[in-house]
């Protein structure tokens, strides 16, 4: 009892047959082999599965693939330009050492993009509040805050 869904992922439109209960994160990872987005809890707390659906950052473990029918989805794999030029948020995380084990990083990048798009000049407090739905066990967040601040500066310029 599968259903057909058509989604645009990182600029490419494709149609797939999926089980109605398939989570969006598993659709991305298992069906499409886009393994950049991670599964950290499956309870919508950790944020490692954060992707953009129709321009909004969402936790893809808390959505069924069928609910994304017709949607435009951006994952970490689609952040850099086609030629490989990194997005400002990627460059900032690299420069500021905003990652250690890297497992939370794809989700952190997606939420960072959203924080800055909503508020181009966030204060540190606003950055921290914006990051609260994404857990990182390695960094203590300080370098992530630095990375968001620095990416915002670049994106404002």
């Amino acid at each position, binding site marked *: 009892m599968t259903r057909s869904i058509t989604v645009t992922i990182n600029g490419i439109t494709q149609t797939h047959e999926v089980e109605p209960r*398939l989570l969006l994160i598993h659709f991305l990872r298992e069906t499409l082999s886009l393994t950049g987005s991670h599964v950290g809890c499956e309870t919508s707390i950790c944020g490692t599965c954060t992707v953009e659906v129709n321009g909004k950052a969402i936790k893809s473990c808390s959505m069924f693939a069928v609910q994304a029918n017709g949607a435009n989805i951006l994952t970490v794999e689609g952040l850099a330009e086609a030629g490989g030029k990194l997005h400002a948020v990627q460059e900032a995380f690299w420069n500021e050492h905003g990652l250690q084990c890297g*497992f939370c990083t794809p989700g952190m990048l997606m939420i960072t993009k959203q924080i800055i798009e909503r508020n181009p000049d966030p204060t540190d407090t606003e950055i921290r509040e914006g990051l609260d739905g994404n857990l990182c066990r390695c960094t203590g967040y300080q370098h992530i805050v630095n990375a968001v601040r620095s990416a915002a500066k670049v994106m404002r310029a």
Partner: protein
Amino acid sequence: MATTTTPTTTKTEKYVGQRLRRREDPRFITGTATYVEDIKLPGAYYAGMVRSPHGAAKIRSIDVSKALARPGVIAVYTGQDTKNVGGVICGADLPGLRKPHHYILAVDRVYFPGHPVAVVVATDKYIAADAADDIEVDYEVTQAVTHPEKALAPGAPAVHPEWPDNTAFVFHQVGGDPDKAFAEAEVIVKQRITSQRLVANPMETRGVVADWRAADRTLHIHTSTQIPHLARTLLSIMLGLEENRVHLVAPMVGGGFGCKLNVYAEEAIVAFVSMKLNKPVKWIETRRENFMTTIQGRGHVDYYELAAKKDGTVTGIKLKLIQDLGAYHQLLTPAIPTLSVLMMPGLYNVRNIKAEVVGVFTNCVPTDAYRGAGRPEATHGIERMMDILAAELKMDPAELRRKNFVGKDQFPFATATGLNYDSGDYAATLDKAMQISDYAGLRKQQVEARKQGRLMGIGLSTYGEICAMGPSPATPAGGWESATVRIEPSGKVTVLTGISPHGQGEETTFAQIAADELGVHVDDITVIHGDTAIVQYGIGTFGSRGTAVGGTAVYIALQDLKDKITRWGAMFLNSEDVHFAGGVVTDNKTGQTVALGTIAAAAYRAMKLPPGMDPGLMATKFFEPSNFTYPFGAHIVVSEIDPATGQIEIRRYVAVDDIGNILNPLIVDGQLHGGVAQGLGQALWENAVYDDNGQLITGEFMDYAMPKASTMPWIESAHTCTPSPVNPLGVKGVGEAGTIGSTPAMVNSVVDALSHLGVRHIDMPLTPEKIWKLVSTHAGSQAA
């Protein structure tokens, strides 16, 4: 043979010491890093575990028929099928240690919630999860015991029926004459101090892909581990395979913090299934499983006594340490509290110590190494006791510490616990932290705040730790580390390290070391780790050992290689008076040079060899450390408590750490920040709570409070530098420092904020509810 003055790439500027951004990062920020769950093998099956919902029960029967009837289910195995597989191995030993056999699947009893009783194999993970729910296990539930002191009480339920006292071991250590010290003491302070169970919670849970290739009789395993070589050795023993037929890879590992310094039942179960079915099999732990079945940290109830003179000189320490072991020994479980004993005196010159450690079985998941492993508990203990003593003597806690520090001219310093502290200047870190925080000014502010009825606290810890694990005789496995440095025919450099970084950044720092030693560009170096088929045997990443032991192995392999390069250069230049620097060998008389690239090509082409030399250009070295290293520091936390809510605001966090030489300040900062976050997590929020029925009631992120961006303070970090004499890099280790220093500083700050109300000690975590209740009950009883 021509000489050349046009080397491929050479560099005279030093990389070591620079804030170099990490060379491993592009794969992570582009989402192309490969973790275990990202590995897809053709035809792979998925495994799902059936786990005990009870803390203690007998298994009457298991009905797997419904699961087997489900389309897509391949097989189900229970403990009856796996009971001949070797048990999970404990690598630690103590006199008289009771070691229960740890079957990979429970056979007739379950001993903790989450204990695996069966494994389901299916064509996809959704079916495996459904089929796991189909399996009906008939349990006869028995009374569980989950608290170590309750487990020691007469008449407590026996976790293992063969040992009714629930005692796995009792370990004693005495240094000096503690009984005399206590008999002659002018002041004695006592306190019960707990260090609650914590969940390591790396963002990546555990996971295994096992692929038995019957035609080759080889087992290929990808597993999320900190110790690929040790895991291969132990799994080959458990599975009865020749070790050279097991190939184990730690791919990218999404955090470990000690919980992946282990070999787990599931690694053997998944391998067993792959061997049974001749198919690749994958298992990825859910977060819920991770909470229930991956080792937890801490789990202490400590009874401390300090003997002192009226002037503040501490003359003796007594400790009764009750360690909650859980139901089994994992790899290092019983050894962890013995590290606490070693660390008992902290940075203080205390000559008389007495410790009794009681290891207690409970119906909980085993405890084992979690960031700091034994040292945070001990540091929390001594640092709390120093504050309690300071309060008793009405001394400033900084002054009391300064009075008892091992002096900077006393190194190497033999402790009463048998360690030999390598180097240090403890007063210098304290001075710097007090200066940065304006400690004197803060104390004045506090007086003002109290007049206004505000609850402001200033807490400090002056911590030490035991790092760079370690000398082999003092460790359960070897404590050495290995490195191979290979100059390829093109002159490019490959470093193979026996450690297994998973966030610590050694692909960068080891490249910095190699680039400096060889005088080449850092981009000419590649660092490889984690694959037992590629890398020579190594020990792994834990115990703040990566750079201090693994980096030193790289360094000494480079010295060996430099000697070879110099001899090749001498042949090229037809001179014995040469030296190697900046990527070229130079004739000291003529100034003629030959570049590393030219030498490398000739070493592999081998038309002519220098006297006594073989073709090729590589060196492998194993470094055996002569001692641990002993980093230290001083952390100061300024807090303010809202009496209406019990909420704690961290106003300032100052950390001054001495970790010896710093190879990459950017990476060091990151390690310290992350360590502080985990230490504050213990102090303020985190708690693995089992109820009396044996249920883990904080078994998800919903119930277990992790540090978040908005709850973490800004960390003001500074350093002093006392190079370690133990290794030629002069490094000490930084992975655990923040975790060890932060917890007592935070708790001391909150107790300080409430001290004028008569509060002397608070057990962690310092939840708002707990603080609010304390403020409410103590209000009006102001002592100050």
